[in-house]
């Protein structure tokens, strides 16, 4: 048993921090919350790609470094800590590249991975539909075979990638007669194809990073099929373990945490800084405690992945825990901000650059996306604890 990181890993963390510090010094971007999903900055993604930091865990023969998931966790932890605008490449790096490495043909790997590695693929996930959220297997979007093509008709919703999305990784029904879990396939193709209409959804914060995507007779080459036809549901479950596994479920609002501590130190309401008030001290310490417990969960998930196992229940646990923490962080920040918490980011007098306001609203979605906390707890109960079904 060893809770220490290696010297190389410490050095790598420092290398990432130095890079991000330099970026800030150059005034290239401002730290922000949810930057991993809303911070679109193609130039930043390019700079990250140039350092070889996309595809860190992919095998070397696929263009990656063959590094560990702990190494990737260190990289992403620092990106989140600094609130760096990594949204353009996050999804491709986190799971799509891995899906292609795992399920793709050699030809697909040669054709698709390089653009991800170069930071040129801004991928959105086409999973949910208006009538298919937690019950993903009930999806209706069709992919009908037509010679060397599939024709896609239907609609996806909550597709990330904002207005930058240029590739979509989606699941569609290829066999309507099979039981619903066994008639679904995965596809990966460009959103510039005729018949695709990307319509932004404005979220509760006023931000735009999710889309509806309409498919009207979209013809895609059969080469766009990833993995096995009709095995898409099982492939996606594997991908979901990775989607749920990351530090972004815990530290997406870390800039707020730091801003909150600073705010408490600088703000006086009754003669002394809030940070010297017992209640505030206790609240901030409790957040720190919950954050550190969360980091242990996250590192454990990475250890499981490095052991070659799918972190099925472990990432369900870490995501449900992490998103609850983020909601707690946001509500505590609003509590400490008091009356000021209701000021929106553009308002005069707004504290903490409006991050408490933003996170309070944004965090309502965390326990829903990529697996609702209810679904995740079902997984813990049924798969890990083996409790019976009804």
């Amino acid at each position, binding site marked *: 048993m060893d809770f220490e990181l290696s010297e190389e890993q410490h050095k790598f963390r420092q290398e990432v921090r130095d890079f991000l510090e330099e970026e800030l010094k150059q005034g290239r971007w401002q730290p922000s919350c949810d930057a991993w999903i809303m911070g679109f900055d193609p130039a930043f993604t390019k700079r990250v790609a140039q350092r070889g930091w996309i595809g860190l865990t992919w095998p070397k023969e696929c263009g990656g470094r063959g590094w560990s998931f702990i190494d990737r966790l260190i990289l992403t932890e620092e990106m989140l800590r600094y609130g760096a605008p990594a949204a353009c490449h996050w999804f491709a790096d986190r799971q799509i590249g891995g899906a292609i490495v795992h399920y793709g043909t050699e030809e697909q790997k040669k054709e698709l991975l390089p653009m991800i590695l170069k930071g040129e693929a801004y991928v959105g996930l086409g999973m949910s539909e208006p009538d298919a959220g937690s019950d993903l297997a009930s999806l209706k979007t069709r992919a009908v075979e037509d010679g060397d093509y599939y024709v896609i008709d239907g609609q996806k919703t909550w597709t990330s990638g904002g207005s930058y999305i240029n590739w979509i990784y989606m699941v569609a029904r290829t066999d309507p007669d099979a039981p619903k879990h066994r008639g679904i396939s995965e596809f990966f193709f460009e959103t510039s194809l005729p018949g695709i209409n990307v319509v932004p959804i404005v979220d509760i914060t006023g931000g735009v990073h999710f889309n509806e995507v309409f498919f009207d007779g979209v013809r895609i080459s059969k080469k766009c099929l990833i993995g096995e036809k009709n095995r898409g549901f099982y492939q996606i479950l594997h991908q979901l373990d990775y989607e749920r596994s990351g530090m972004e479920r815990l530290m997406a609002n870390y800039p707020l945490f730091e801003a909150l501590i600073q705010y408490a130190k600088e703000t006086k309401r009754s003669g002394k800084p809030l940070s010297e008030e017992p209640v505030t001290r206790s609240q901030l310490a409790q957040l720190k405690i919950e954050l550190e417990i969360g980091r242990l969960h996250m590192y454990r998930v990475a250890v499981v992945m490095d052991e070659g196992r799918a972190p099925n229940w472990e990432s369900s*646990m870490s995501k449900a825990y992490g998103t609850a923490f983020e909601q707690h962080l946001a509500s505590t920040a609003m509590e400490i901000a008091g009356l000021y918490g209701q000021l929106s980011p553009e308002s005069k007098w707004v504290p903490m650059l409006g991050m408490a306001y933003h996170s309070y609203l944004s965090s309502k979605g965390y326990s829903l996306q990529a697996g609702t906390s209810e679904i995740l707890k079902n997984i813990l109960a049924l798969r890990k604890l083996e*409790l019976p079904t009804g």
Partner: protein
Amino acid sequence: MDLAFSEEQEMLKKMARDFLTDKFPKTAVKEIEESDLGYSPEVWKEMAELGWMGLVFPEEYGGAEMTFLDLAMLLEEMGRTCLPGPYFSTVVLGGLLILDAGSEEQKQEYLPKIASGEAIFTLALTEPIARYDAAAIEMKAAADNDAYILNGTKLFVPDANVADYMLVVARTDEKSRGEDGITIFIVDAKSPGVSCTVLKTIANDKLCEVVFDQVRVPTENILGQLNQGWSEVKKIIERAAVGKCCEMVGCIQQALDMTVDYAKERKQYDRPIGSFQVIQHYCADMITDVEGTRLSAYQTAWLVSEGLPCTQEVAIAKAWAGEACQRVMALAHQIHGAIGVTIDHDLQYYTRRAKAAEVTFGDASFYREVVAQEMGL
């Protein structure tokens, strides 16, 4: 980073579990709890023969030279089986403190006695003011030629009723109020002037009031340096807090296992209650709390094993563990229904111990303040 135990550790764990499960069925735990001694001298001897008392002592003192991490695993198993008795007091509170702060003569005098099971130790630290900071030490130790005279009251002293020796924390410099001027004394429990009353507690764990009335302690029985004892006391509080966290892991893991088993078996409305989603989600919440406690307890145990600073990590682990235990036990009771609220059901052993562990060696409020200071607030 590697979270697996070694093969030897797995063997120690299994052996400990088998031994403790065999020796301490709940009928035995109940009997011992209700006895005056609060432990089984026969099993105590067997534990010594297994090398458990001297587990982390160097070989020259009769020890097995294992690590604090190994001890942590043992403590988890003890928490799981509700081991009654002065193991924690003797080994963690007594043994580790002598190992750290003792002179060579003192180590040679006392450590082999602990390792052989011959001597039971405890730490007399807390006073009626009931706090774990230095200013809470008010008991006086006044110099008198080649000795010190101790006067005062210690409360919540574990196993003082059976201890052969007590490590007593007292204030030797009456002008000081803070961390300076505190000294640790090795006191023979049978010294004239020492009187011990066992308190009735929720965990039936023989916490005692110990009154010191003109108790004479030779100067050579000072453990560590005169007036410099607090830094050692602080370290032992940290170690004890980690040890308690490990016991708590065993406690709530067992509570979880019992609860899941019960949910699978108990039927209402013609189906196991574990098939209802609310019960499933309660169990999911429980295992999340258990895992967080487990990860943080073992991280801190590893830090202690490696001799690395861990004040913040200990504070985080103990604050977390105490509150996690309460959540787990609350849900365990809710799922067990009425049967779990009887004295005949085993669940209550864990409920009572979890509450005691929560407040011992610092509760969540205490450690939140430590974390706040570590954060620079």
